[in-house]
């Protein structure tokens, strides 16, 4: 099956955006055929002519042909790799450039609403609020694109420091309560009450947690319930977010962490979304030395979980001491 697939030049050409004669697998096959034909003809030639010169010439012709085909395969692959790199670079530069005007829109609308709102009618205010919210949404999209470009270029650099995961989860849940209420969904965070000190990049992990919990809210409709928990197990901490939402169809579960993937029922249910959140979360968590997994049943709900290594006890003590002294100051 795989061989048949590999030999589907037309499909490969379409995927890579090049002509069929330039696809690596076609050229490879061609090289194989030439090798076989050449060997047969060298054999044939050597039967008729006994002079070694003719043999040498025949062999040279074969070697040169194979060499040039091989070379054109390499050149094509190189060209594709370069284009791919240029694409990632373009995405990062373009997204970066979008950030300043977006910040300006966000700040200007916030200034209008909070400081110069006197005399504005309710309608005007709500219009400005919408612009503000949309600019915030666009800012998120731009940061997601930047993160994806970084992941694709292998440039997503994560800090490794000890921090309290429970506090971050608590803050994230808190910041999402309004969104959940708007969808008539309840978020419950079962906190253990003691700090859970893990190693990783606090800000990026906050983003991963936010992606998981906001997905749970987004894909749960009315009377929804989202349960978030954090617990320790064998030197790791396990985070879980359980919802009673739309779930993921069985046949699509293997693609959940793919870039730009959105399940059929999710698209029907909620048009907003890019399919980048889980891809980013997976990359952040795995790069932090953890794992991410899920269980889901369509129409019943999903549980998304991840593990992260705990901070070594010595460092954790240092962290608690530092946090404590900061608090007193």
């Amino acid at each position, binding site marked *: 099956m795989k061989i048949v697939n590999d030999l589907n030049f037309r499909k490969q050409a379409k995927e890579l955006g090049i002509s069929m004669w330039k696809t690596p697998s076609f050229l490879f096959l061609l090289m194989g055929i030439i090798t076989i034909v050449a060997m047969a003809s060298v054999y044939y030639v050597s039967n008729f002519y006994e002079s070694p010169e003719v043999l040498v010439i025949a062999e040279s012709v074969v070697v040169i042909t194979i060499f040039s085909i091989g070379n054109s395969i390499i050149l094509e692959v190189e060209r594709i790799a370069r284009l791919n790199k240029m694409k990632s670079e373009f995405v990062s530069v373009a997204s*970066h450039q979008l*950030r*300043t005007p*977006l*910040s*300006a829109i*966000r*700040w*200007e609308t*916030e*200034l209008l609403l*909070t*400081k110069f709102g006197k005399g504005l009618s309710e309608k005007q205010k709500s219009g400005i609020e919408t612009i503000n919210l949309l600019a915030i949404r666009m*800012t998120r999209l*731009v*940061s997601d694109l930047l993160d994806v470009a970084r992941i694709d270029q292998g440039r997503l*650099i*994560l*800090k490794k420091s000890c921090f309290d995961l429970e506090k971050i989860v608590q803050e994230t849940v808190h910041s999402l309560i309004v969104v959940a209420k708007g969808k008539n969904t309840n978020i419950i965070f079962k906190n253990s009450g003691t700090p859970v000190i893990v190693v990783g*990049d606090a800000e990026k992990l906050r983003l991963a947690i936010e992606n998981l919990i906001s997905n749970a809210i987004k894909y749960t409709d009315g009377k929804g319930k989202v349960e978030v928990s954090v617990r320790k197990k064998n030197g790791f901490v396990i985070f879980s977010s359980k919802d009673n939402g739309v779930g993921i169809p069985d046949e699509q579960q293997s693609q959940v962490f793919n870039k730009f993937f959105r399940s059929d029922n999710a698209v029907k249910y909620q048009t907003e979304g890019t399919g980048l959140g889980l891809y980013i979360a997976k990359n952040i968590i795995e790069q932090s030395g953890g794992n991410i997994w899920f269980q889901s049943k369509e129409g019943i709900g999903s549980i998304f979980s991840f593990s992260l290594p705990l901070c070594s006890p010595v460092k954790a003590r240092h962290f608690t001491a530092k946090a404590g002294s900061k608090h007193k100051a």
Partner: protein
Amino acid sequence: MEKKKILIVEDETTLQKTLAEFLAEDGFEVLCASDGEQAVALAKKGKPDLVLLDIILPKKDGYEVLTELKSEADTKNIPVILLTNLESPEDIDKAFEKGASTYLVKSNYKLEDIAKKVKETLKM
């Protein structure tokens, strides 16, 4: 009580203007600089209580400004909050090494949150 003085260093005029107006409405006296050289000069002359500093700036970048401020007796005790769109761990570490008090990524913060950080830093 006397008004606290904030120096905003930002080359993007729209951002500089909104930030300045917001802080002025919050009861601060505001100074503005649009490049690194102007920033250093204003910090020495204007004696601000706090500096909000961008990193990518014409003439001198934010790190150079920070280094200069921290090396002079007059200005070394002024707290500096970096306010930038750079967000790699190296940039953040470099800023703290050079003596920044706080590091904020512009696109993650509302004006209100920035004002809050300013007040926290000034212990208001």
